[in-house]
């Protein structure tokens, strides 16, 4: 039961306003989010509904215009770089575009070594570090021996995204924020990535926030679904409730517009 679980991350009245005057755009509008430990939450919305802005605020990559973020019940403090790094030990992200997620000057070994160092493993013997990296790579079906001395851009999109999951495996954060992790890869690799994420979640018991525009995907992975329109949550609840019996017209439209295979796809509604 979610109510018995502890709140992991919550926000109160989180708002982001871009520009001012005539160009004032409210991207995220007084959002209240409650995340319980160990659950998988999806935030679904069309492009331009403010999903990514919300994600960036939760990560602390951009500042909010109004409102606060609470981590494990305590107000988040990321006023200095040191405090930010402390916060990022608890929350990590996988982004949409794997090609721009890596530093192009760093080799794959150093990408993974950084993760071990961040977890306080700086003084471990080298053999132990290699063992840890090999374990992480084999978890995502990559071979560490083939990856050493390579740069991230030498991998394919699917492999890069899996390497991203290997990073998460080493870092073991409390919260994982996945911002459209499968939108750049095709349907077959999508299943692989999702399975790996879900297995990883079981293994280290983390909370996952899934940001996606694909309502089918949200239904498949999550316990709770939030539907976002113009920076606001219009509907939320358990996945079965929201997807199978949607109440809001916006949610109904989103679900109707997705092509289905068991029910008829009604083309007359657009």
């Amino acid at each position: 039961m979610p109510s018995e679980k502890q709140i992991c991350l919550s926000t109160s009245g989180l708002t982001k306003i871009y520009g001012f005057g005539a160009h004032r755009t409210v991207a995220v509008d007084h959002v209240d989010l409650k995340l319980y430990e160990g659950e998988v939450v999806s935030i679904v919305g069309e492009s331009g509904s403010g999903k990514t802005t919300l994600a960036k605020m939760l990560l602390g990559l951009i500042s909010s215009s109004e409102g606060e973020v609470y981590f494990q019940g305590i107000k988040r403090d990321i006023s200095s770089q040191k405090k930010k790094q402390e916060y990022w030990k608890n929350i990590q992200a996988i982004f949409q575009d794997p090609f721009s997620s890596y530093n192009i000057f760093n080799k794959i070994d150093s990408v993974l070594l950084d993760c071990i160092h961040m977890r306080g493993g700086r003084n471990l013997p080298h053999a132990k570090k290699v063992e840890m990296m090999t374990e992480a790579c084999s978890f995502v079906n990559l071979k560490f021996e083939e990856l050493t001395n390579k740069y991230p851009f030498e991998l394919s999109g699917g492999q890069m995204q899996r390497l991203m999951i290997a990073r998460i495996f080493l870092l073991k954060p409390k919260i994982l924020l996945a911002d459209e992790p499968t939108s750049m890869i095709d349907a077959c690799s999508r299943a692989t990535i999702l399975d790996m994420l879900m297995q990883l979640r079981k293994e280290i018991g983390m909370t996952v926030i899934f940001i996606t525009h694909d309502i089918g995907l949200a239904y498949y992975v999550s316990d709770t679904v939030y539907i976002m329109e113009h920076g606001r949550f219009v509907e939320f609840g358990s996945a079965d409730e929201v997807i199978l019996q949607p109440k809001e017209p916006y949610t109904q439209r989103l679900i109707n517009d997705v092509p289905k295979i068991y029910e008829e796809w009604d083309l007359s509604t657009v």
Partner: protein
Amino acid sequence: MANTMLEVHELTTKYVTRFREDVYAVDHVSLKVEEGRSLGIAGESGCGKSTLALSLMGYYFPPLHYMSGDIIIDGRNISGMNPDDVRKSILGREIAYIPQAAMNALNPTQKIIHFIEDVIQEHDMYVTKKDIYDRARKLFETVGLPAEVLEKYPVELSGGMKQRTVIAVSVLLLPKVLIADEPSSALDVTSQKMVIKMLKQLMEAGFISSMIFITHELPLLYNVTDDIMVMYAGQIVEKAAAQEAVFDPLHPYSKGLMGSIIVPEKGLRDVKLTAIPGVPPNLKKPPMGCRFAERCKLAKPECRVTSVPLRDAGNGRTYRCILSENELREAYAREASQNAK
């Protein structure tokens, strides 16, 4: 019996890399599309779907080269034609092509109507601007686009609107075959639905006689096309009616693809998505036997040595596997019962 609009026999095309290596991206592909029918092509990225679309147009430019085979559009063989002749007399009139990012084809400094004038005058010199405007307006009204769009610049239109405009322009010369290569993958779900609705309207109104639709989104393909063809590593591995291809796939690769479908419908959460392990083979050195053998659960030693021909399963259904229909179905049933346990 309906007229055959597009018939392709054993078409083979290759890419030549800058190291002079040959990559056979389309390997002995045969297909047939009849009047009023639509054919869907499915497959993962890199299996030759888009190259097939480019090859079907008969318009080759390096690194893509024509090797062998025939492309017959409404009784006329266009294979081996001079590229200039193809551009003048085939593209647009006989066969039209919509690439994935078609909306980027619009010239930002020109109004839509001027773009349309250019397109029509390139193919037909003796037509007045008044006629062009009337034709364009009539077409736009049929597909539910407002006629004001004609007087606008591309920047004034949204992504979905631009995509629909380009599709409308591509069928102005009444092509016999329309090839749509992922026309909706860059759009959100509502715009995607509008694009699909428009393509269906164009078919019904007779602006296009037949359609080839390429995508990796299987639920979409199932809803749009009559037949589905599955491609793997440059070859056709299965062709069947949409219903059969999605609910009763024969080839192990098609089975794997159908196992990765995600739709927001009841029962989705109970099934486990199946992923196909491994990666497609390198087409510079394609494997000797079955190209899927490396990733196939049902592979036998002989699969890797002998090349597998397409087999007929009746009702226009074909598949490429050494196992018989019954053997495949038994194997899938066994697997399903194991998963249930």
